[in-house]
């Protein structure tokens, strides 16, 4: 009879892959909730819905329902990602004629792209950037100027917006590289103030009055005209929504792949301990430059598209306070977590718009919320999961 070799490692049955269903269920519930929240107008109903959401979240967490959902998302990301895209399209389809809700959705999508860029800088590389809104504005102003004065195709304008944001960001590279901590914070804060003041006093770029931005036109299809397919009338924001969706999916995939690649590993190492990382042969300067430039590129593209959606750019849209909002979205959702960023953006953009009574108080509430989060749950709503180092390692 063969004896079991005492040195052999015990046989452990591999855990099955997490089921798809908890994730799907969560998505369906979230979509239905979002549609209801966006459709309802009466303030009391909205407040009721928000209270319901908080209660449901807390109850689910207490009952242990959240863990399977998180596992499901972590392991079935591709399938659930595709379903999330369908969910957004479903919401958009429901509101196909409502200009304002579609505008809100486009805002959420583009802010998410910008925050993903910020996430690369802050969350992965640890580079402080308090001028996120300024780079957003650079992209927007690029589309304003290029659309009005040149015949550059509008899709190329988006790219140019991103490149210009990255380029201007590179002016800050030397001070950013040489400073740490609060000194680094000062550099980007000073830049944010400088850019806003510059845009305000400079008449060429419209001054405080701002510039009108021509709507997007791709191959003769004007994005600013309402669409009618067959008998169905669609708001003109649908075209922008489609493009923003493409942009978001691209940015999301980029960020996820980046995190899992050797680039992401290097960025994390550099963020956690610069001295140790450089002992291992990583060049911190190189990685900081990569992260900062890539992040600004994404922010710039999002800004360029948003400029065309809104049709108007002005220096007051891109102040230091707006940069702080982007940072608070990042903190709320969980630094380094792309899904967290998406959820936090929805909360930060949609809730004040719907709950008109708090519209005036929204800056105060964001600030207080972030303070509370930082004091009691610094990881944010959907914290970034611990990196999986071994392929096939299941949670």
């Amino acid at each position: 009879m063969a004896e079991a070799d005492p040195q052999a490692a015990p046989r452990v049955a591999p855990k099955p892959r997490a089921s798809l269903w908890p994730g799907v269920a969560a998505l369906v519930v979230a979509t239905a909730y979002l549609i209801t929240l966006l459709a309802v107008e009466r303030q009391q109903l909205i407040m009721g819905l928000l209270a319901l959401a908080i209660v449901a979240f807390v109850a689910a967490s207490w009952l242990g329902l959240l863990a399977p959902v998180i596992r499901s998302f972590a392991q079935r990301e591709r399938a659930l990602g595709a379903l999330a895209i369908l969910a957004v399209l479903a919401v958009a389809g429901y509101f196909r004629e409502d200009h304002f809700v579609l505008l809100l959705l486009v805002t959420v999508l583009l802010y998410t792209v910008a925050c993903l860029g910020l996430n690369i800088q802050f969350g992965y590389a640890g580079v402080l950037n308090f001028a996120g809104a300024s780079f957003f504005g650079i992209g927007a102003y690029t589309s304003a100027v290029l659309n009005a004065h040149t015949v550059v195709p509008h899709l190329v304008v988006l790219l140019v917006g991103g490149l210009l944001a990255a380029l201007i960001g590179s002016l800050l590279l030397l001070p950013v590289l040489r400073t740490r901590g609060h000194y680094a914070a000062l550099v980007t804060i000073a830049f944010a103030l400088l850019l806003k003041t510059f845009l305000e006093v400079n008449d060429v770029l419209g001054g405080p009055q701002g510039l009108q931005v021509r709507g997007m036109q791709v191959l003769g299809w004007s994005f600013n005209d309402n669409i009618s397919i067959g008998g169905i009338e669609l708001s003109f924001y649908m075209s922008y929504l489609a493009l923003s969706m493409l942009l978001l999916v691209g940015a999301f995939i980029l960020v996820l792949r980046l995190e899992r690649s050797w680039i992401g590993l290097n960025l994390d190492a550099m963020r956690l301990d610069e001295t140790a990382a450089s002992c291992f042969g990583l060049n911190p300067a190189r990685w900081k430059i990569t992260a900062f430039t890539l992040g600004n590129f994404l922010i710039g593209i999002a800004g360029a598209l948003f400029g065309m959606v809104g049709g108007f750019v002005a220096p007051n849209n891109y102040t230091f306070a707006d940069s702080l909002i982007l940072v608070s979205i990042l903190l709320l959702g969980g630094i380094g977590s792309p899904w967290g960023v998406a959820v936090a953006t929805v909360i930060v953009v949609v809730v004040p718009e719907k709950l008109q009574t708090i519209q005036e108080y929204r800056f105060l509430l964001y600030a207080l919320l972030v303070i509370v989060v930082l004091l009691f749950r610094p990881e944010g709503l959907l914290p970034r999961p611990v990196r999986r180092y071994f392929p096939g390692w299941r949670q």
Partner: protein
Amino acid sequence: MLAAVLAASTMSATADAKDKVKVGFIGPLTGGVSVNGIGGRNSAELSVRLRNADAKAKYEYELVVLDDECKPNVAVQVATRMAADKEIVAAATHYCSSTAIATVDVYHKFGLPVVVWGAVLPDITYRNKYAEVHRVNGTMINQNDANAELVTKLGYKTFAVIHDTTDYGKGHNQYFSAAVTKLGGKILGTFGVTADQQDFTAELTQIKALNPQVIYFGGLTPIGVRIRAQMDRLGIKAVFDGTSGIVSDAFIQGLGPLAEGSLAFREGAPTEKLPGGKLFMEKYTAQKYDNPPEAYGAFAFAAMDLILDTIEKVGPNRKQVIAELRKTKDRDSIVGKITFDDHGQNTVAVITRYVIQDGKFVEWEDSQYASGKRKLPGQP
């Protein structure tokens, strides 16, 4: 359960005798010029209230109020929200010119008919020929002509211009400089400042070196107050010559005795002297609002009245309201007869010239400065 919530929200209220119609109002309800915005809002709200109390009205009106904070970017956001809401049929919009000029394209994009009640920049109606945009108050061209005429008649020859860098201030600079140069005045220096600038010592020190007799200010009350106060701090003894932007109680409150002897001009007669002015003031005070109607409250009332009249006539349909507004000719209102030209602009012929005397805006002709009992600084 969510379905039940959806059903509850879409269930309409029990049928009233009249259909509900929504109209809009946009003005600066917060920020430095909020007294004007609130005055305008109260006046528009008064108009809606009186109409709802009228049994002969065909519809019941609901006023949707949004705040543009006198900032162009906020204005575009709230204008987009108002125009994108298909239930709002028409709106009375904007006191600040910087916001009004930024939003004309939005109203045109969404097809919302608007009547401007307080912004004076000519470009708002004249830059484009948008059928949606109308205005009941006058433009700044006439007030600057009258301004230049008065100061040159008083014998002043040298001027310095301070204007804010929004289109409003730039417009004032453009029209005043042209008018005063034509009448023989000499502009020694022009200074652009931001609309929320705090410290003017740099500009004013340079102006002190130039030594003008009059400092013309093209901008709004908040920085007007600061400039006048800092003029005193630096010992500059020139005449402070302002525009309709400083015709506000907040200007006098902010400066106290320093406001004495400042000039201001605006189109339209003072509220009490308007054709329907007394009636308007009576009804306004009866409502016991916290704020006075300020300089443009009467125009806000007239704008809202015009909108309501038009909706009564053609129904709550945006396209038809636009078509009907275009035909407005010699329509009676509390500010006189309203006629829109082919750009939607009403002509307001009267220009009122004010000087601040003893803490009040006094018409020039009635003041002691005109009769010679008091003299403006440096009056030849």
